[in-house]
C-alpha cells in the first residue's frame, strides 16, 4: 500500500513539474509573442505617433489666443514688458535690493529638460499654488480659462498656506508624472528642494507669482510673475508728477521681509531718492492689513505731521486703503493723495470715488493664465530664453480709466 502511495505521489510530483515547465515555456512564448507583437505595434505606433505629434503640434500652433479675455475684459494671454537687467551694484544695501528685484534673471542654469515639441494640446499640467484667498481663486479661474483655450488637462492643487502640504504635493506630482508642473512657492528658500526634486524627476517646472531664490532658479524652466518693482516705479512716477515732485510721503508696508514689502516700499523710497529728491519720506509703518489699525496710523500721521503729509503709499488697495481713506476723510484731509497696489473691487471703487489717486493693475487671472501660455510656448517648440522671465501686463488705474478694468476679478 505504502509503495503504491509513494508511486502515486512521485507520479503526481513529476506531472506537476511537467506542467510547471510547460507553463513556463508557454509563458515565455507568450512574452516573446507579446514582445513581437509589441515591437510590431511600437513600430506602427512610432509611425502613427510621429504623425500624431506633428498634427498635434500643428493644431496647437493654430490656437488663437488673441480674443481670450479675463472677466474684467482685459486680454488674458499677453506678456507684459520685461525690463532689462542693469549691472549689479557694488553697494551692499543696493545689491540686496537688486538681488530681490532681479532674482533669477542672471542665474547660471542647469541644462533644461528639452521640450518634446509635440504641441500643448492634451498635455497634463499640475498647478500648485499657495492658499485659498480670493486672489488665488481668481488665479485659478485664469488658469482654467487658459487651460480651456489650449485644451490642457489641468489639475490645481491648493496647499492652503502649509509648506509641508506643498512639499507633499511635489512628491505626489512626481509620482503622477505630469508633463509639466507650475509652482508658486510658499517659501523662496524651501523652493530650492522643490524645484530640484522636479528637475531630478525629469519634470519641467515653471515658477509663477513668487520668484524663488537664485539657487532654485537653476532648475526652473521660466518664471512668470507680476513685475511689482516695475509697476511701483511707474506708480511712484505718476504720483510724483502729479504733485510737482515735492511732497511729504508716508508709507504703509506689506508684511515685512517679503518681496512685496521691498517692491512697494523700499523700491519707491529709493526711486524717489534718486529721481525726485523733494519727495521726502516722513514715516514708514507696518500695521498689517487691519483697517482700524491703518486708520489709526494715518490719523496719528495727520496729528503728527499736519500739512506736511501730502501723499501716502499703500501696499494694499483693500483694508489698508479703506483705513487710510477714512482717516483722511474724518480729519478733513481729502487733499492727501493716496496710491496703492491693486486691483481689487474695493480699490477700484475707491479710485472711482476719487478717494484713491491711483492703483496698479495686477490681473490675478493673468497671474494664473500666463504660466500656461509659457508652457504652451515650451511644448509648441518656441525657444524660451535662458533666463526666461515673463511679466504680467502693467497699467496704472486712475479715475479716468478705471471703468476699463471693471468688473473686478476678486
Amino acid at each position, binding site marked *: 500500500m505504502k509503495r503504491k502511495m509513494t508511486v502515486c505521489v512521485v507520479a503526481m510530483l513529476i506531472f506537476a513539474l511537467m506542467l510547471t515547465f510547460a507553463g513556463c515555456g508557454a509563458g515565455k512564448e507568450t512574452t516573446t509573442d507579446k514582445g513581437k507583437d509589441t515591437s510590431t505595434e511600437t513600430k506602427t505606433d512610432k509611425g502613427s505617433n510621429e504623425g500624431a505629434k506633428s498634427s498635434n503640434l500643428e493644431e496647437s500652433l493654430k490656437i488663437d489666443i488673441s480674443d481670450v479675455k479675463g472677466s474684467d475684459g482685459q486680454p488674458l494671454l499677453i506678456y507684459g514688458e520685461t525690463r532689462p537687467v542693469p549691472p549689479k551694484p557694488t553697494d551692499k544695501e543696493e545689491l540686496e535690493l537688486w538681488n530681490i528685484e532681479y532674482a533669477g534673471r542672471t542665474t547660471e542654469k542647469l541644462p533644461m529638460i528639452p521640450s518634446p515639441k509635440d504641441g500643448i494640446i492634451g498635455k497634463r499640467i499640475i498647478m500648485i499654488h499657495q492658499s*485659498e*484667498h*480670493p486672489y*488665488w*481663486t481668481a488665479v485659478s479661474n485664469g488658469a482654467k480659462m487658459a487651460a480651456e483655450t489650449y485644451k490642457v488637462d489641468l489639475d490645481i492643487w491648493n496647499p492652503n498656506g502649509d509648506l509641508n502640504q506643498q512639499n507633499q504635493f511635489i512628491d505626489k506630482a512626481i509620482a503622477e508624472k505630469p508633463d509639466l508642473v507650475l509652482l508658486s512657492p510658499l517659501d523662496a528658500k524651501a523652493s530650492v528642494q522643490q524645484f530640484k526634486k522636479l528637475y531630478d524627476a525629469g519634470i519641467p517646472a515653471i515658477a509663477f507669482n513668487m520668484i524663488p531664490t537664485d539657487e532654485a532658479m537653476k532648475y526652473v524652466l521660466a518664471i512668470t510673475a507680476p513685475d511689482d518693482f516695475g509697476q511701483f516705479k511707474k506708480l511712484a512716477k505718476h504720483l510724483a508728477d502729479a504733485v510737482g515732485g515735492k511732497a511729504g510721503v508716508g508709507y504703509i508696508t506689506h508684511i*515685512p521681509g517679503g518681496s512685496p514689502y521691498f517692491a512697494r516700499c523700499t523700491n519707491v523710497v529709493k526711486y524717489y531718492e534718486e529721481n525726485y529728491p523733494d519727495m521726502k519720506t516722513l*514715516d*514708514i*509703518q*507696518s*500695521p498689517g*492689513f*487691519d*483697517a*482700524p*489699525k491703518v*486708520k*489709526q*496710523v494715518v*490719523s*496719528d*500721521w495727520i*496729528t*503728527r505731521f499736519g500739512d506736511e503729509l501730502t501723499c501716502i503709499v499703500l501696499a494694499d488697495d*483693500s*483694508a489698508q486703503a*479703506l*483705513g487710510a481713506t*477714512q*482717516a483722511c*476723510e*474724518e*480729519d478733513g484731509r481729502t487733499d492727501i493723495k493716496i496710491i496703492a497696489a491693486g486691483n481689487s*473691487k*474695493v480699490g477700484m*471703487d475707491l479710485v472711482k470715488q476719487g478717494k484713491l489717486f491711483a492703483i496698479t493693475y495686477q490681473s490675478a487671472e493673468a497671474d494664473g493664465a500666463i504660466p500656461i501660455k509659457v508652457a504652451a510656448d515650451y511644448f509648441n517648440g518656441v525657444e524660451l530664453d535662458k533666463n526666461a522671465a515673463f511679466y504680467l501686463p502693467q497699467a496704472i488705474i486712475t479715475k479716468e480709466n478705471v471703468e476699463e478694468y471693471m468688473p473686478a476679478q*476678486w
Partner: protein
Amino acid sequence: MKNLMKINCCWRLMDEEVFSVEENVCYEVNKDTRRIKLDLFSTIVTKFGVFFMIAILAVFGIIVSPKFLSGSNLLNILNAVSYLGIVATGIAFVIYSGHYADMSAPMTMAISGVICVEFMRYGLIYGIIAAVITGIIIGSINGFVIGKIRCNSVIWTMAMNFILEGLVRWSYHGTQIYPDMANEQTYKTGFFLPLMYKLDPNILNIDLEARAAAFNGLAQTYPLGAPLVLYVMFAVMIAGYIVMSKTTFGNQLKVVGSNYNVAKMSGINCTRTVMFAFIVSSVCAAIGGIFMTSLNQVGAFYVGQGYDFQAVTALILGGMSLAGGRGNMAGVFGGVFTLGLISNILTLIGIGTFTQKMITGAIFILVVYVNAKSLRKLGRDYA
C-alpha cells in the same frame, strides 16, 4: 479686655464621672501683631489698575507731542480701538467665568459679517438680526459643549474657529462677498444665497445700491461728530458692566469663575451660567463682525483675524485674571484704551512697527508683573 480674647468653650465629655471639667473657661490669647505691609505703590496699582498705566502714558504723550491731548487725537485713539473694545467686552465674560478665552471670536466675526451681507438684501435690519442670531447659535454651541460636557474651552473654541473657517471657505469657494454685488454667480455660493435665489429668482433684480450704501455706511456714520461704532462700544460696555456687577447672573458668574465646584454645590446652574457667558461673547463678536465687515466693505473669512489674542491681551492688561472671577468692565475699557494709547504715542514719536511691538510686549509684561506683585504684597492673590 484690651489684649484679651475671650473664648467660651463648652466641653461635653462622654464620661463625666471620670473627668471633672469646668464648663466655662476663659483663655487669654496674644493678639497677632504681624503687620500687613500696605505700601503706597502697591495700593495705587491695585486700586487703579490699568488706569495708573494710562496716567503714565498720558503724561508721556503730553511731553512728546503738544497735539496729544487734542480732541481729534483722543477720538482717533478711541475710534481705532472701538472694534476691539466690543469683542473684548464679550470675551471678558468668558474669562470672568474661568474659561480662559473664546478663540472662536475671529471666525464668529467673519461669519456674522458674511451672513449680514447675505441678508441685507432684504434690508439692513434683517442683516443685523441674522448676524446676531448667528452669534447666538455659535455661542450656544460653545457654551453647551464647554458648560455641559466640560470640554477645555481653549481647545473647543479653537476647533470651532477652524470649523467655521472651513465652512465659510467651502461655502464661498474661497471668494468674498460684496454688499453691492448681485449677479447669478453671486447666488451660486454662500450659505443662504442659493436658497434665496431658489425661492425667489427675482431677488436678482433687487436694487442693492442703496442697501449696500446703508450697510457700508454703518462704519462711517458719525452721530454728533463721533463714529457710531464708538457709541456701540460704550453701550456694550455699559450693558456689560450692569450685567457683570449689578445682576444675580453677574454674581453667579463670579462664583463660577472663582470656584466651579463651590458654585455647583451652592446650587448655581453652572451649565446655564457658562453657556450665557459664551453667548454674550459670540454676540459681541457678531456685533464687532458687522461693523468690521462694513468697514472693509466686504464679507470674507479673514475679517476679524487676530482679534482673539488682541482681546485677551487687552483684558489681561485691564486686570482680568485668566483663572476667572476677577476683573471689571472699567478694566476692560482701560486695557483696550491702553493698547490704542501705546500705538498712538509710539507713532507720534516716530517709532516703527517692529519696535512698537517690542515696546508693547515689554509694557504688557511690566503691567502684569507689577499688578501680580502688588496683589501678592497686599495678600489678595496667590495665583
